[in-house]
Every structure is written in structure tokens, then in C-alpha cells.
């Protein structure tokens, strides 16, 4: 499991979550995004390669979303498979996040 951060030509930070986002690695994601927040305000988190997310992982996304908004930034989520999409819907977090299907759609929406 790992996180990759890339900045596109418009300065949008695209974060890839490879494997899982759970209690054991959520702090790593949080720190990486907070560090990147010093140099950019627009973020996409891409879950295309993500197997599962537990409630701690959902919690860290909620926390990051708040922090990014406080800094005047914007966060979009993309690449959720059907199961992950259902998880966001069940927890009603789909109402809290801007969720789009693909990284391309996420980038185009900024």
C-alpha cells in the first residue's frame, strides 16, 4: 500500500491510493496532503487502485476536506468502484464530497 502525489500542469495535486486506506496508514496520507497543501490548493484523490477503505480512512478524508476548505482549496474524489461508492452512500459521505468517476473528469471540473 502506498500513496503517490503528482502535480498536473495546472497545479492540481493528484493523490493516488494504492491498496487500502485504513487505520494503519491514514496518518501517512494526512501528512502528505497537509504538506502538499502548503504549495497547492486543489486536490484530487484517486481511488482507482484502492481495494478497501475503513472508517478511519473515511474519517481522515473528512478531516482533510475540512482543512483544504479552510485554506480556500478544493478536494475531489474519483475512481471509486461500486463497493466504495456504496460505502460513501451508506455513510452519507457522498453528500459531503465532490465525487466524480475518473481522474480526467475531476481535473476537468476545476
Amino acid at each position: 500500500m502506498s500513496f503517490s502525489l503528482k502535480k498536473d500542469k495546472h497545479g492540481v495535486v493528484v493523490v493516488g491510493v494504492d491498496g487500502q486506506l485504513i487505520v494503519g496508514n491514514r496518518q501517512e496520507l494526512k501528512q502528505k496532503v497537509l504538506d502538499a497543501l502548503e504549495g497547492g490548493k486543489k486536490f484530487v484523490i484517486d481511488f482507482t487502485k484502492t481495494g478497501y477503505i475503513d472508517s478511519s480512512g473515511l474519517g481522515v478524508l473528512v478531516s482533510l476536506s475540512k482543512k483544504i476548505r479552510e485554506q480556500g482549496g478544493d478536494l475531489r474524489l474519483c475512481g471509486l468502484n461500486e463497493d466504495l461508492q456504496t460505502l460513501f452512500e451508506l455513510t452519507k459521505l457522498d453528500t459531503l464530497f465532490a465525487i466524480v468517476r475518473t481522474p480526467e473528469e475531476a481535473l476537468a471540473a476545476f
Partner: protein
Amino acid sequence: MTTPQPLQIRRRATGGETEIELSLDVPSDLEYVGPAVELIADELPGGPLSLRRIRFNFRTAFAEALANAIAYGNRRDPGRVVRVRVEVARDAVRLHVTDEGNGFDPADVPDPTLPERLEREDGRGLFVLRSLVDHVAFNEKGNSVCLTLRAG
């Protein structure tokens, strides 16, 4: 993880309704959650659960139950372990997760989807658990949970 210990899975074939039983003791450190989940999920025989449900429902529910047991049950006390037992039967997989804590009352956990709780970072564990498996049963003390995923 200060002193990494290898996780040792035990596997035994049983003669009754449960065909295979896997068990594992997990130290009370949240760093073990991911490796423990992968270890057990990789050992689950194909059969009762589809690969998709093993990949998502089983893994997520297991990670949730284990993290709760380590963090809230054992309070990350290195002297305590979480005992995991997985019964694989033809009709279902039953996952038992037991900590050495004092238990809790699941009825006291508020609904995390209420508007006033939606932006909280924590408090979704039990809700997620209940959403992903067919049945959740706690023992009376509240320190042991049995998650049932019916075949399919």
C-alpha cells in the same frame, strides 16, 4: 510498531458443519491491522464467499472489528492481544474478534449519518461493520463480536 512480531496463522480442518477454522492472535498495535487482514483474507478458501465479497466486505469489516478491539477494547496495551477466529462453513463465514477489555454497549453508539455528526472524523466503525456483513452479534460483556457473512 516498536517490536514487530510475525503473525502466526493457525489452520485446522474440523469435522462438523464448520469445515475449516483459522485463528490468529494479534498484538494490540494498529500497525498490525492491515497485515492481519491480508493474512487471513489470503488464506480464506474459495467457496462460500465470492472474491468480490472477500476483497471488500470481508476485508473492510475485519479491519473495522480489529481496529476497534485494539484501540477501544485493549486500549493499545502491549500486554494484551486480540483473538481472531474464522469459521468457514458451506453456508457462511463467521469471524469472531475478541479483545481483553471491559466491553461496551453497542446501543450507546450514536448514528454517524445524523447531520450534526456527519463532519466528525470518528464514530463510523460500528455503522460500517453493520453495513457490510449479514449479521453482527456481540457477547453480553461487549468485548467479543461475531460477524457473519452468508455464502454468496
